[in-house]
């Protein structure tokens, strides 16, 4: 039986979909069979990030409504044998599926795959409820911004209410800005969210470029962000991970500032 992990954040635009694509590709590279589910029904874009948009015939709502089998809707990745995508529908509403139906679907997929990674939509409404319904674990993605942390905190509370164990990925850390004192550090984010840290991902232009190319960066593994995603994937898979040497001491520099009141 595989593990179902939902990637969520509350706030939009913090890198949920990018994290889903990169962690999925990373886990597949480590030899796991992985399926990515785009739960953002009506606003699908995981397929774009994966570069698979032109192969979509059926989608998750088709599967849930019984219009096709899950096998038919799954799209195999271009480069990795054991990586699949179950795309969202672009035309349906978020409430066209129920949490119960998602639960059933994810349970079936867990029988086949080692990892079921669910890309959660922004917000805490129906789409969020659907996305977390079948999840065994959650990864909250937060950027070192007060607005992102505020929303993440809310989502962590909701996940705790659903008894879903949650860990944290801090995305888009800019070491220079942290050094200058213009950005919250990774340590600051962990301190307020009080979650176990899976890893921090530095701000990296390469991520934007790879997203636009439709090819998750972690597969190449050259840029700093790609390495960070790969390291997080190893950690998810339960492999030994070296200390986070590439992030440098600057990341953890204590600022000693009041987080909630600081003008970040």
């Amino acid at each position, binding site marked *: 039986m595989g593990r179902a992990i939902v990637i969520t954040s509350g706030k939009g635009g913090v890198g949920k979909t990018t994290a889903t694509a990169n962690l999925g590709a990373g886990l597949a590279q480590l030899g796991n069979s992985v399926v990515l589910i785009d739960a953002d029904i009506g606003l699908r874009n995981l397929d774009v990030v994966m570069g698979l948009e032109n192969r979509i015939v059926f989608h998750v709502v088709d599967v849930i409504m019984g219009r096709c089998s899950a096998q038919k809707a799954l799209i195999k990745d271009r480069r990795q044998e054991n990586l699949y995508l179950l795309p969202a529908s672009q035309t349906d509403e978020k409430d066209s599926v129920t949490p119960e139906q998602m639960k059933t679907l994810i349970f079936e997929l867990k029988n086949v795959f080692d990892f079921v990674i669910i890309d959660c939509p922004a917000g*805490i409404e129906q789409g969020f409820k659907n996305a977390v319904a079948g999840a065994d674990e959650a990864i909250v993605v937060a950027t070192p911004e*007060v607005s992102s942390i*505020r*929303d993440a*905190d*809310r989502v*962590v*509370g*909701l*996940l*705790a*209410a659903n*008894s879903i164990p949650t860990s944290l990925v801090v995305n888009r850390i800019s070491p220079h800005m942290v050094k200058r004192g213009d950005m919250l550090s990774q340590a600051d984010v962990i301190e*307020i969210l*009080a979650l176990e840290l899976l890893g921090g991902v530095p701000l990296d232009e390469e991520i934007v470029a790879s997203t636009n190319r439709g090819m998750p960066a972690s597969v190449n593994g050259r840029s700093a962000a790609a390495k960070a995603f790969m390291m997080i994937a190893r950690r998810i898979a339960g492999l030994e991970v070296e200390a986070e040497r590439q992030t440098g001491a600057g990341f953890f520099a204590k600022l*000693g*500032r*009041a*987080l*909630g*009141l*600081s003008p970040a």
Partner: protein
Amino acid sequence: MLPLSTPSESAEAAAGPAILLRGTSAGLEIVVAPDASVDAIGDALIARLEQSPGFFAGNDVSIRIDGRLPTGALARLEAITARYGMRIAEVGPPPRLRPQPVAAEPVPAPPAPPESIDDVPVIEAAPEPDPEPQPLHPLPIGWEGPRVLIGPVRSGVTLDAAGDLVILGDVNPGAEINARGNIIVLGRLRGVAHAAVGGERGFIFALRLEPQQIRIGKTVARAGEADRAGAGAEIAHATGKTIVVERYQGKVPI
């Protein structure tokens, strides 16, 4: 003339004084016995008001009679009450005989004292399903004693305590904690805290007091713009119209 609802009261009214002066939640009332004569009413009222002349001056008074005042009685009553500085605001039947919509002024029943700690109204008032009902462990102490909760209290959570509230852990920005008593946060207070809800005196203590806003009673204080780095344990209390925050020095400064 309508009969009174119970024979005993009817008998009492007939045998008792012609008027009865009483204060009610709605104000001062002169209850007039249903079959008293104009003179009896007037004499009885003068006799009663003479006991403490001037005491009722400036008050509005309602005439309560089960039935109709005898002819001329109202004029007599107005003359007498005016002499003592009172004004007749209303003439009507006793409340229990008034028509239903008026008579049914609901007096909210006082809440029954909780039978166990489980009944203490610490309510998760958030409209969402409460994000954190599980890790909060109430201690088995008296129902007016402090309520001890394990944090962190996260954004979007509202906690209401009937007495004092103790939080072990942080109160994050976006969370709101309210207590009728005092609030003690053994962690960072970064959300909104309201102590002495419905009262005036109270304090808010935190190991790091960095709130968005604190309220004590009806007084509100919000965080300043400046960083409050380095401050240790602090305590906020209300003095009159302002909230004072000072370094905690081992005692409550009020």
